[in-house]
């Protein structure tokens, strides 16, 4: 069970949130071509380690938050707003 510290509502249980996947993806330019779009829609880094991802606080403020979470330990290093640049701990720090 995760505890996500919503910047608006405080620390809450993960049952209040809905996961929305990888937050590092950037939509390609409209004329970027099929390969760029296929890669954007389908391909993922899917790391075993720190992962920057979206969680929507659906049963709270309903904001979409950016979360830095470790996919092996579930440790959460940072929670922020959608356009925040969050610090990602060193790759070797936890695994």
């Amino acid at each position, binding site marked *: *069970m*995760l505890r996500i510290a919503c910047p608006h509502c405080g620390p809450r*249980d*993960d*049952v209040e949130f809905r*996961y929305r*996947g*990888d937050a590092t993806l950037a939509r390609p330019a409209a004329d970027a071509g*099929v*390969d760029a779009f*296929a*890669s954007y*829609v*389908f*391909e*993922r*880094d*899917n*790391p*075993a380690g720190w*992962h920057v*991802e979206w*969680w929507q606080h659906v049963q709270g403020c309903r904001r979409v938050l950016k979360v830095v*979470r470790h*996919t*092996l*330990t*579930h440790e959460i290093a940072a929670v922020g707003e959608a356009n925040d640049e969050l610090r990602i701990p060193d790759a070797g720090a936890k695994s």
Partner: protein
Amino acid sequence: MDLYSGWRLAKEALGGHLGWKPAWRDAAPKAQYQVVIVGGGGHGLATAYRLAKEYGVTDVAVLEKGAIGLGNVGRNTTIIRSNYFSSENVRFYETSLKLWERFEQEMNFNAMVSQRGTINLYHTDGQRDLFARRANTMRLEGVDVEHVDKAGVKMLAPLVDVENGRYPVLGGFLQKRGGTVRHDAVAWGYARAASARGVDIVQQCEVTGVRREGARAVGVETTRGFIAADKILFAVAGHSSRLAAMAGFRLPIETHVLQAFVTESIKPTLDCVVTYGAGHFYVSQSDKGGLVFGGAIDGCNTYAQRGGFTMQEEVMAAGATLMPALSRLRVLRQWGGVMDMSMDGNPIISRTPVENLFVNGGWCYGGFKAIPAGGVVTAHLVATGKPHPLGAHFGLDRFREGRTIDERGVGPSPWAH
């Protein structure tokens, strides 16, 4: 290979059972192989066996980081069936089911293949219509499936509370030839048969890197040294993205955890596999008497092979709604398995952007039933370089070309499958 039989059992009994030998050779890795298979799970071992048997390719190593059978092949809820939605999937999984039916004879290994039937319950008219459409597709492909009304469900599975207050059961679709298989025995059976044909099964050998020369893969770095290979197959279930990263490409996959549970043993009470269409819950009774059950994935990317309380609570709640008697049983064990959730919820058996490198993965939570056919299709691809007709729709190019397989109509959101 010394064959197992009633006669052999009697003979070994006379010798005090001291004459049994290990079922397969625990080999040390050679410096070079024609084919290196990364991952000693069901698909890796079945592929090795088929390569040796059907294509005469015996210079093969299966490299497993732990011990064979401890991955998802030994962590799943053991359900086999071929009730799929799209015709190409019905054909693929039906081929697998037919191979399960002959598995024990072909492998000379008791895997306790038990065709006790699988029933999918429905709870609304819309769900009934959708299942009926699936049933019709199956029948067009010559595969058995029957409609069972509410009274029939009650007869088949008396523990099911068909009038449950949350999602009353209206009926179900039964595939009588579906059922369960002793999962560990699948790994052991394939390992024994492959090893007997010359395949090296190398345990405690983790692949840590992939060596490339330009566009080609030429071997793997392992915890037991570099191993050269003409062809390499990744068959690592939940870890495909990590192996792909070692080789320098990305896959349409996220890794998620699925949990399973088993209760204390009770008398025979549940004679078929039951899945609850409304609550994402499925249950069967093991041959030892425990009720084995599971539900949905935890819902966020994870490589932690354990699983969280949130989903445990949800699965138990769904189970107790469907079968109130379940709430009186003690859960003895719970575990999780990490799985490749592919972007369209379907497997990937394919060439990759790297030459001589193939992948068998993306099985999501349904790849156990697929093991026999997965071995056939993957061995064909590795041996000939061309997709097997039964698995041609599993190619990676389907994502770029807009031919994703729409089994469930969920779209590219693995956590929603």
